[in-house]
């Protein structure tokens, strides 16, 4: 074992923290998804998944979120190369795609409510809104962080020497994306 100067094992401090936090988040979404799977058939006379879900629409918003992962990783790459112009471009595109996704979710929710699925309609409704709502909240927090990052990039410039922000936000953002990959498959595609 090398007797190095500082961090043991060559682990990056903040990334270690972020990964352990994300591991914890896995459990959080796991519990939400499980609740949904348990309650998916309990519609209490209200509309069920097959009636409500619009797969082409959700596929588009899934695609949007997936592509936001691409723009995020490009932003990260630009940050590693210290290319401020590209960094800003991709950060803003990521935030924009996130907003498009949120807009889609807002539209979806209002459609569902219109069609008779509310929070208090059925356990199915409760668990669906809780799961997708918490995911949406995560996306929203991500958009906020990306916006803050973009502002910082314009004002002071984000360089590698100025901390790990971009890297951490990227990890968080990709995490939100992979959770959606699971939700899209398990909650949407498998239920119709």
């Amino acid at each position, binding site marked *: 074992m090398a007797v190095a100067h500082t961090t043991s094992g060559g682990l990056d401090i903040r990334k270690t923290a972020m990964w352990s936090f994300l591991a914890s988040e896995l459990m*959080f979404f796991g519990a939400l998804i499980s609740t949904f799977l348990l309650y998916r058939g309990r519609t209490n006379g209200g509309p069920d998944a097959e009636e409500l879900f619009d797969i082409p629409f959700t596929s588009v918003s899934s695609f949007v979120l997936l592509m936001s992962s691409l723009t995020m990783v490009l932003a990260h790459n630009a940050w590693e190369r210290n290319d401020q112009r590209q960094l800003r471009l991709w950060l803003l595109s990521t935030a924009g795609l996130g907003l498009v996704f949120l807009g889609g979710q807002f539209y979806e929710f209002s459609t569902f409510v219109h069609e008779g699925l509310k929070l208090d309609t059925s*356990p199915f409704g409760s668990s669906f809104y809780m799961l997708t709502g918490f995911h949406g909240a995560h996306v929203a927090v991500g958009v906020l962080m990306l916006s803050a990052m973009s502002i910082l990039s314009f004002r002071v410039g984000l360089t590698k020497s100025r901390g790990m922000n971009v890297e951490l936000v990227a990890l968080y953002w990709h995490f939100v994306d992979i959770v959606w990959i699971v939700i899209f498959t398990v909650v949407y595609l498998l239920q119709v």
Partner: protein
Amino acid sequence: MATIVEAPPVAPAAPSSRGGLWGWLTSVDHKKIGIMYGISAFVFFVLGGIEALVIRWQLAVPDGTLVNEEVYNQLFTMHGTTMVFLFVMPVSAAFGNYFMPIMIGARDVAFPRMNALSFWIFISGGIFISSSFFLGGFPDGAWVGYSPLSTQSEVIRMDFWAIGLLILGVASLLGAVNFITTIFTMRAPGMTLFRMPVFVWMQLVVAFLLAFSLPLVTVGLFQVILDRNFGTLFYDAATGGDPILWQHLFWLFGHPEVYILILPAMGIVSEVLPTFSRKPLFGYQFVVFAGAAIGFLGFGVWAHHMFTSGLGPVAETAFGLMTMTIAVPTGIKIFNWVGTMWGGNISFTTPMLFSVGFVAMFTIGGLSGVTHSIVPADTQQHDSYYVVAHFHYVLFGGAVFGVFAGVYYWFGKVFGRMLDETIGKWHYWLMFIGFNLTFAPMHFLGLNGMPRRIATYGDGLGWNYWNFMATVGSFVIALSILVFLYNAVRSYRSGELAGPDPWDGRTLEWTTSSPPADYNFAEVPVVEAIDDFWYKKYGEDEDHLPVRLDTNPLDPSASAPQEEFHVHLPSPSYYPILLAVGIVTLAYGFLWLPVGYLVMAAGLGIMLWAIFGWAMEDIDHPMGDNGHGEGHADDGGGDDAEAELVGTSSEGAE
């Protein structure tokens, strides 16, 4: 014994910017935070203890009339909630905060401000739950908060409980992430994972247990809050909701939680026994692996709390067998502790007494635990006083004895003066007798058919005698706590000076001054073995017996005035406490909607202010520090990232 050096009478006067009340409120020093955790946990311990005394007074005789059912239900709910979430967990965090960084040779935890935030969120959550007493009554749905009882009560008491636990969960999660990161990244040179003290290992296992189990109960708590306030139907059987789901989510967290409570105490005992036996821990690697195994298996046995809920014989068999397997690593630990004492040169100091008491009492709790894994037998024991006896042997005979072992062991290190040994032994024996008098009879009561959580019981069921004895015992415990308090106050003022190494210790914390300097080590230690400090003090003669060496392995700061060393330290910050205030304001507002929307807005505003300030704070600001103004390229941006970490957890989900 090591030489006793001149030490200040109490904690040394800190630099003005770090001293005084303001210094404590804004401190990011893991040691100060540890002390604050310890003291507030002890306050909650006394509160929870008073609740227990009322409970025992009520049950001393059949058809007790001291309190009515309404009050009684609140009392035992708060007793459980307080002792689990507001005493044992934070007191473990206290030891972890204070000693984990020192024991791995670090100067602080990985994220000092996040550490302060953990503490302030914890304390505001504790105040939040406890304040329910003045705002409509304590929660009254038992500490397990089973739905639909928890979603049924029309008063806001259970909202206090659910939201309070969410707040405490945020505190614990931040702490867990911080500890995991600290242990993985901040160890001193040469401090490999398998040279870490067992106490640190147990803190690591606990941090993982917290990180993986808290989100589960978080989801359940959100469901309870949503059901209670927004008409969701998670636990409404009439529309297809299922109350059993809560039990799964709660115990998926709740069982690991049991190990979250006991593993730190096991860690403490694993430090104390070798020191006073003057031998290394027997089977270090086995003890570590057993601890990790207990943690891992702890996730697979949650349903043994649900053996009466109708799981069906197949699931009951599976979970019963899984539960049995936990006895194996637990047994390994007990045998290794005895093996540590075997062949040693044992001095029965107070910490040693508490540790041996721990091993003996925990064995009883472990054995009664095995009887729970015998599923059919558990259907008789479940929710009876037998279970109450069992988990008090684990959590009082185990965790609390371990905690007091730690208090007596490390008091001198923390405060510079030793706790009095004679009074300490009085404390121990009173507590030992009182504890057994209180909880051993509960085994009989449970087997004789007395259910738990009952405010009164009828005469003529054969329960009177043991109930009375248990009540007598509980007051003996209370007396022992008074003795301890006297000891603590007296010794803090005028106890024997500790010096850096009063016990001839084996681990790194004994190389520093008592109390340690703000920066812990003037020179970051280089570690070459398990129990490194011991082997720097002792060589080996031809019979393989240890011989004291002439060298002085103490850290230079342990024997020199502190001003000589200039170590870069993070500055104090008032944003952690501000953020915690924002969170708790938000929570209070939520309870009184729609008027509360204004309060919630205020809370949100405070939070945003704190997060923004946090992110922008120049933690090298010369005013805040001892004048260390030198730039640190990584810090500004780095803490920005830290702020965002916090932001996601408090705003986003957990």
